[in-house]
């Protein structure tokens, strides 16, 4: 699919403000993260989760935050239904989530199917006390399932043949968010 007519909806400075606001909301709810963990949904939630952890450590002086990455490939509900094969990434959760509050982190919330798969995948690592969802972009009015974010960066109205992409630079330092039009 070739993309054209890209519209930038967030630049680096706006994104930086949003990340700081999201970190502050997480700090308000989870304080020093004694009983809360961050889990980035692979692949695109990983960078975002790392960024939020960096901000929480540098600005709120939190000493230790457990951060994991969850691959949902084998839990997706579209297996065998797409021409392209689903490529798995590495799952890395080196801590127990039993009785913890888990903050699932992804860059874009669209149909809600990835989050549903993540909730199923999470069960392999224990029974969390609570699961929250943080999404940088909430593509509202596009949901296939009853999933809503607890924390969001920006809400976007988009139609089905559009894509929303968070593009990070090579060093994962700066990013912008675009709405792209897909060719049919």
């Amino acid at each position, binding site marked *: 699919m070739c993309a054209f007519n890209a519209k930038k909806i967030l630049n680096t400075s706006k994104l930086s403000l949003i990340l700081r606001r999201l970190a502050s909301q997480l700090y308000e709810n989870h304080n020093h993260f004694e009983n809360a963990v961050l889990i980035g949904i692979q692949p695109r939630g990983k960078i975002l989760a790392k960024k939020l952890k960096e901000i929480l450590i540098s600005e709120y002086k939190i000493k230790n935050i457990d951060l994991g990455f969850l*691959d949902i*490939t*084998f*839990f*997706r509900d579209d*297996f*065998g239904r797409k021409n392209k*094969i*689903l*490529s*798995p*990434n*590495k*799952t890395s959760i080196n801590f127990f989530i039993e009785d913890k509050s888990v903050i699932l982190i992804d860059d874009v919330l669209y149909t809600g199917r990835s989050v549903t798969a993540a909730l*199923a*995948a999470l*069960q*392999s*690592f*224990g029974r969390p006390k609570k699961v929250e969802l943080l999404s940088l972009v909430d593509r509202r009015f596009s949901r296939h399932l009853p999933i809503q974010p607890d924390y969001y960066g920006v809400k976007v109205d988009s139609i089905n043949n559009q894509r929303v992409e968070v593009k990070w630079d090579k060093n994962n330092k700066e990013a912008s968010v675009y709405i792209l039009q897909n060719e049919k």
Partner: protein
Amino acid sequence: MKNKLSVSNLLGIKYISLEDINSIFDAAENFKEVINRKIKKVPSLRDITIANLFFENSTRTKISFELAQKRLSADVVNFSSSGSSIKKGETLADTVNNILSMKVDMIVMRHPSPGASVFLSKNVNSCIINAGDGCHEHPTQALLDAFTLKSKLKDFSNKNILIVGDILHSRVALSNILVFKKLGANVKVCGPLSLIPKYIETLGVEYESSLENGLKWCHVASMLRIQNERMNQSYFPTTREYAKQFGLNLNKLSQCDKDIIITHPGPINRGVELSTDLIDSGKTVILDQVENGVAVRMAVLYLLASKL
């Protein structure tokens, strides 16, 4: 794992490309992480029904396939030829077509006749995985052997692999030679000349008559079982003489003065191809092979099922 496999069946290593092998390894790496979790099951194949047709005895392969299928949430039916209508004279194609009409999606088959899985793929409309056909091929064993070695060697180029034992009757030998050559390793075979196939050099493989010289040359020694059940004549004077000349023990290994990775596909004839002291010393990767077998078979099933 960027592309789907180039094949719809896994009939042998001969039929798959290097890209296919690497795709299987990539997926197996992920499944290895999954099977080491406390909860080892993923729902990927929950709509898929798989029949395991074993017309020949098996312990590891059968259990490994069944565990792989169950950990992928597939529905599994098991069939063995004893106690079936095969005994009443039903043909292989008829048996399988009857099973398939019960809406089975994939067939995993072990059969004593070489080429049985290729025959089946031409006569039935289903996804076939060869779990060993006579002395022809055993592709999943070769893939799990190579996957185990990949984690130890990192790269196969300029690596020397010595395959020792009954090359003539071993399906593992042929599949291993093919997979190691495709991955870029150098391969030699070693064993009594009576157990070396005449066509061996056409596979790009050299013959080494001395185990000691072979051990000095190799990074990996892949020891194979003497397949007494397939021997219809005497290929060497006595088992004792075979063990003395081609069996590996701690003493022979210590004389090499280097670390050699020792593999064996199992089952082992203790005291024949491997001595008991060597097996129990922890210097082999036999149990790693068994563990990786489940991950590799999960990868094969997952990738083939995505084409259904």
